Structure formats: structure tokens, C-alpha cells
């Protein structure tokens, strides 16, 4: 088990460029107070990020517009499970169960 040369540089570089945007806001915003409108704008980030990631994983997997019927259908029971159970685990299990059933039916 040897860490190879190219891998070492790729690992070092990509870890650094990932770490910086992660910690920068936590350093800067300790002292700096953002204006109220900016905080309200940031309040929309969670919903926006999650919706964007979800849309991408369902509608453009691998960078091409290729929504799949079974994956869209399985999203419905998962949505209902999330809304009514308020449980992340129940949502994931429902979604997985739904996709297994749909893949064996369709």
C-alpha cells in the first residue's frame, strides 16, 4: 500500500481547494455581521441547494437530460413518506422499496 506520486499531488490540491470554501465563511462571519437582507437571502440556500441536487440527480444523471419513469414515480411515495413521517430514514427506505418494486414491475 504505497501512496503514489501523482495521486499525492491530486489529493493535496483537491483537498485544499475543498477545505478553503468550507472554512472561509466560518472564519469571516465570526467578526463580520451581514445585513438583514443578506441573511434572509442565505436562509433560502438550504431549500435551493437541496432542490438543485435533487433535480439534477433525477433529471440529468451523467450530464444528459434523461429522466427515468421509475425514478420519478418512486419519488412520489418518498415525498409522501417525508411529509407525513418527518423521518429521513423512513423517506430513504420508502424510496428504495418503491424503486425495487417499480424496477421489477416495469
Amino acid at each position, binding site marked *: *500500500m504505497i501512496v503514489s506520486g*501523482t*495521486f499525492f499531488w*491530486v*489529493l493535496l*490540491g*483537491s*483537498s485544499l*481547494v*475543498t*477545505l478553503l*470554501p*468550507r*472554512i*472561509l*465563511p*466560518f*472564519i*469571516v*462571519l*465570526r467578526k463580520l455581521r*451581514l445585513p*438583514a*437582507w443578506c*441573511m*434572509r*437571502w*442565505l*436562509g*433560502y*440556500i*438550504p*431549500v*435551493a*441547494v*437541496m432542490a*438543485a*441536487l*435533487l433535480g*439534477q*440527480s433525477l433529471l*440529468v444523471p451523467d*450530464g444528459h437530460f434523461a429522466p427515468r419513469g421509475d*425514478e420519478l414515480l418512486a*419519488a412520489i411515495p*418518498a415525498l409522501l413518506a*417525508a*411529509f407525513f413521517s*418527518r*423521518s*429521513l*430514514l423512513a*423517506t*430513504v427506505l*420508502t*424510496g*428504495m*422499496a418503491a*424503486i425495487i418494486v417499480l*424496477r421489477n414491475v416495469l
Partner: protein
Amino acid sequence: MNRTDGLLTQNDFERETDTFFQGVKDCLPTVFGYLSIGFAAGVVERTAGLSLLEIALISLLLYAGSAQFITAGMMMSGMPASAIIVTVFFVNLRHLLMGAALAPFFRHLPMWKNVLLGAQLTDETFAVATTRLAGKRKGSFAWMLGLNVTAYLNWLAANLAGGLFGDWISDPERFGLDYALPAMFIGLLVLQLRERRKWAVDGSVALAAVVVAVIGSLLLSPHVGVLLATVLAATIGLGLEKWMGRGDG
């Protein structure tokens, strides 16, 4: 940042439930989703020729799902280190936005604690944390650390398992494993919406984010698409809020 703007001053003190162990517990529902994606990442990393030690290092130092897939894939196709690093930078730039949304809850903590929490920021710990912090003004370091460390160790274990046993599982789709990730995003999104109860505005924001993410992914790149969608959709949310007179719809 939410409907309580400065009203809840007496509610700010750490509650007994804000413990490290509670953070561990609150992370558990996400463990399943990231176990499958981490396993898949481990398989791809192994296929790309990484040793188990290298898989462990990349999980612990890079610690980002999509970036690890991309790194392994680009290394396999012989891309130069500089191209891989630039790509990873753009893929993970969304952490800047998420960090900016989360950091104000922890400004009462010393610098090193802030850096530690920031270094372990991921999509799912961010979503769990912002859902829990909705309506509060301060976050608990112990709770957040419990959440982060659990996600971190789970990610390492999943990657190593993928590297070790990847060859034996030929068809992960048969077990619905590939759907754990979209299902988790559905859960994180819906919980967020339920907690905030700004259905009209948030619903429009989510819809706008999906549309921009899809168009941006097709015209530019998937990672630029997510960034663009996040920025534009949040701006639309702020605009709608103003237009509707700060109403909750």
C-alpha cells in the same frame, strides 16, 4: 434569516438536547443514504487503481462525494493534476454558500471550533443542521460535532467497504442502493420545507432551483448548474418575499 428575527432571545440558551450524543443520533437517518454513495465511491476509487490506504486518505482529507467520484474518474482517464484540482474546486464551491448560511449560528464560538465545524461541512450535515436550527439564533458545538464526526466516520467506513467488497456486488441497482441518494435529498428538502412553513415562497424557490439546475447542467456543467441554481433561486426567493410583503403565502 427566518420568521423569528430577533424575537426568540430567551430561547437561545443551550438545551439539554444539544449534546454530542444527540448530534450522533440526529445523524443516523443520513447514515444509510451516504453509506450507499460512499460504498459506490469506494468501488470507483478501487477501480481507478487506488490502494486502500489511498481510499482512506481521500475519504478523510477530501471528504466530498461527488468530488471523489470525479477525482477517481479523471485519474483513470489520465487527466493532469491541475485539471482535476480546478474541477474539484468548482464542484465544491457550493460549500461557500452553505457555510455562509450556517456560520452565523456559531459566531459565539472560538475560531478553532468554527474552523473545525466548517472543515466537516457536507450537503447532508448542512441540511440536518439548518433544519434543526430553524427559528433559533445559536447552534451547539457539541451537537454539531456529534453530527459531523458520525457522518465523517460513516463516510470512511463506507468508502473502505466499497474498496474491499466492491468486486462482489455486481448489480447495486437491484437492491435500490442507487436510489438512496435522491431519496435522501427528497427527505432533506421536505423536512426543510416543513420546518420553515413558507410554502408558497419556498416552493417557488425549489421549483426555480430545479429548472435552473437542469438547464445549467445541460448548457454549462452539472457543477456550475448547481451553483447557478442556488444563487438564482435564493435571489428569486428574496424577491418574492419582498413582492408578497414578507408574507408566508
